């Protein structure tokens, strides 16, 4: 049964009738199980109801989804940014597809065909089709799509697997930070960015660290990007004072209200973007870096009753405006009230990666877990390996995956090297060449000399 001019939000499954209030309700209940949707009180009441929601969703057209954003156009600037950026020509090609048909289109089409319709998508469409995909579907579809971006180097090319070197330090101690940098580079990590989450948010610290990273990169001729992940306003001030900044970072959310909780709005991001155009120290035209993560809208009470997958997709719709060099979801960073266990985290990682890729972003994933989740490092390793199969652009590299500042675990320098060997992938070319001349890599593999940070000390 096809919905024509009016929406059908009701179905029957094994003799039982399931009806849904509206599209937002269908989208929420069609989600794979997530603790955050339960906390928000919008989760499907049973497994059968979840499937019923998927069935109903499969029959909704992409045009109907465009007409029913989960947060109204008038109320929310993120909705406006996404809606106003739609390419009508691309949209017209797909508007009459149901979500079910759209799924099959994505699975059966090649990359050029997908890219032709991409600018006709809203985030609600991206989220909707995700809910009809199995984990392997998500890997398969995401793997087709490459979204390269250029800062000092070009990330996201076929055959590469990159990593952010995350040298976090609980005391913002510059020597401690550099110890992690040296360790990481000695494993061939850091081609995406050398990027620190600082403890304190102050201009001097941002400037000091950016300079220090630059100095290290120049001293050892390592072509990459630097970044300090402070608040955008702090970075802007540092940039105005002449700090060498390749990438400007900000955490973003899928609604105006939640962005305000981060202390930003579109105007601030626009200003940051314009300032970078003028003052950035990198070469290329992709110089923004965003982080997102399922659950952040609910945690700042800006989810507008929508599910966390849909809100996450809207982050990517917003990010797209700024042609970023890096975007990654930090999956599992808040805790079990949003993603309870390894299964939910793995699912979320695959969903986010796929959604980002489909939106057109050079998507990476921070496979993270806190110590109060029912999840462990084995789950993170599974997710990393699946992401590598999905041609994920980059993951995080930390010393033994232990973030001593954020007090959670991510993925390690060792993991990056391992995945490259398992999947026969390489770092970004210029970075690999630099690793070769440092004697750390040979033919894409670590040499004897690798894993010894003291080579940068003497």
């Amino acid at each position, binding site marked *: 049964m096809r919905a024509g001019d009016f929406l059908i939000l009701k179905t029957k499954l094994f003799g039982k009738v399931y009806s849904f209030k509206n599209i937002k309700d269908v989208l929420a209940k069609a989600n794979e199980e997530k603790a955050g949707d*339960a906390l928000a009180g919008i989760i499907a009441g049973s497994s059968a109801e979840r499937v019923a929601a998927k069935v109903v969703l499969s029959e909704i057209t992409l045009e109907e989804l465009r007409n029913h954003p989960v947060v109204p156009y008038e109320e929310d600037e993120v909705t406006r940014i996404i809606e106003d950026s739609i390419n009508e020509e691309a949209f017209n090609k797909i508007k009459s597809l149901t979500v079910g048909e759209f799924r099959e289109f994505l699975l059966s089409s090649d990359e050029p065909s997908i890219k032709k319709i991409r600018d006709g998508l809203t985030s609600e469409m991206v989220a909707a089709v995700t809910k009809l995909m199995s984990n392997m579907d998500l890997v398969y579809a995401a793997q087709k799509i490459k979204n390269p971006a250029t800062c000092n180097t070009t990330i996201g090319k076929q055959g590469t697997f990159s990593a952010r070197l995350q040298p976090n330090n609980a005391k913002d101690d510059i020597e401690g930070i550099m110890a992690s940098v040296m*360790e990481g580079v000695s494993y061939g990590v850091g081609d995406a960015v050398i990027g620190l989450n600082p403890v304190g948010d102050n201009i001097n610290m941002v400037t000091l660290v950016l300079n220090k990273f630059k100095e290290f990169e120049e001293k050892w001729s390592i072509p990459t990007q630097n970044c300090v992940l402070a608040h955008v306003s702090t970075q802007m001030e540092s940039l105005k004072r002449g700090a060498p900044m390749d990438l400007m970072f900000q955490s973003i959310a899928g609604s105006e209200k939640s962005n305000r909780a981060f202390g930003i709005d579109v105007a601030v991001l626009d200003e940051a973007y314009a300032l970078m155009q003028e003052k950035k120290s990198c070469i290329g035209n992709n110089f923004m870096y965003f982080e997102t993560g399922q659950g952040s809208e609910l945690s700042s009470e800006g989810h507008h009753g929508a599910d966390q997958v849909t809100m996450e997709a809207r982050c990517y719709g917003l990010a797209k405006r700024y042609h970023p060099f890096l975007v990654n979801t930090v999956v599992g960073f808040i805790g079990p*009230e949003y993603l309870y266990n390894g299964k939910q985290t793995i699912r979320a990682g695959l969903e986010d990666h796929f959604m980002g890729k489909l939106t057109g972003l050079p998507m990476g994933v921070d496979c993270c877990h806190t*110590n109060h989740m029912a999840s462990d490092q084995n789950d993170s390793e599974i997710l990393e390996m699946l992401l590598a199969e999905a041609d994920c652009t980059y993951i995080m590299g930390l010393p033994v995956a*232990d973030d001593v500042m954020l*007090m959670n675990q991510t993925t390690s320098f060792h993991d990056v090297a391992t995945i490259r060997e398992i999947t026969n992938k390489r770092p970004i070319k210029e970075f690999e060449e630099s690793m070769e001349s440092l004697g750390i890599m040979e033919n894409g593999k670590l040499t004897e000399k690798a894993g010894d*940070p*003291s080579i940068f000390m003497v």
Partner: protein
Amino acid sequence: MDEQWVRDISAVDYTSRVTVRNPKSIEACVKLKESTNARVCVGRAGTRYRTETLLRFLADHAAANDSVWSDVDESLVDRLGFFKIKTLVRDKQEYITRPDLGRKFSKDTIEEVKARCIVNPDIQIIAADGLSAFAIDANLEDTYSIISDRVRAKGYKMGTPIFVKYGRVATMDAISEALNAKVTVLLVGERPGLVTNESMSAYMAYDSSTVKPESQRTVISNIYNDGTPTVEAGAQIAYLIELMMKEKKSGIDLKL
């Protein structure tokens, strides 16, 4: 047979142990280790961790995990004279997934607090298990003792100390309102990491209230042996209490 055991890996100070095979400079590695508690200079087996690194990682994760699922030593809070209450949460499982319930009390609980605790105190101290019972076990006694000695020496009226089981930060607002406290201090176990499972935070507010925003609170986190030393944190909390009593404000309004 003699008692024999495999060596205790948790007793090893991994933050100073270099396990890189044949480094270019062992001195440089030692120096790097001294500068950070991150797990650097660990070496590798192929591209993977050495066995020692893996086992220690697993041990530290287990310790962090256990601190979430353990309960605070009740004999400690009894000995210190804390009045014990509980939020709406029924068990740890619910506590982990329902932060909303961990912020609320039943009517009966609030009535009991009003009936059995000192009302209108200058200073109300609360301890909550939060996400690490071990943090409270390790830090509560010294922190609480130094604060209460100092506050009493300054002549302030101390409230009945209260321990909240399954408690989140916002419980301090409800208790403060129930007892009409001036300054409320909540000592709570932080989400554990691999570095430590004993880190505690202190949240402080003047006229702490359920209708005020988060920014009403002044926070000191990272209280544990290798972070901010327990007694020094207690002294700083006592200092901030005096400041809040004098200025009648807290959080972003309080200039430090």
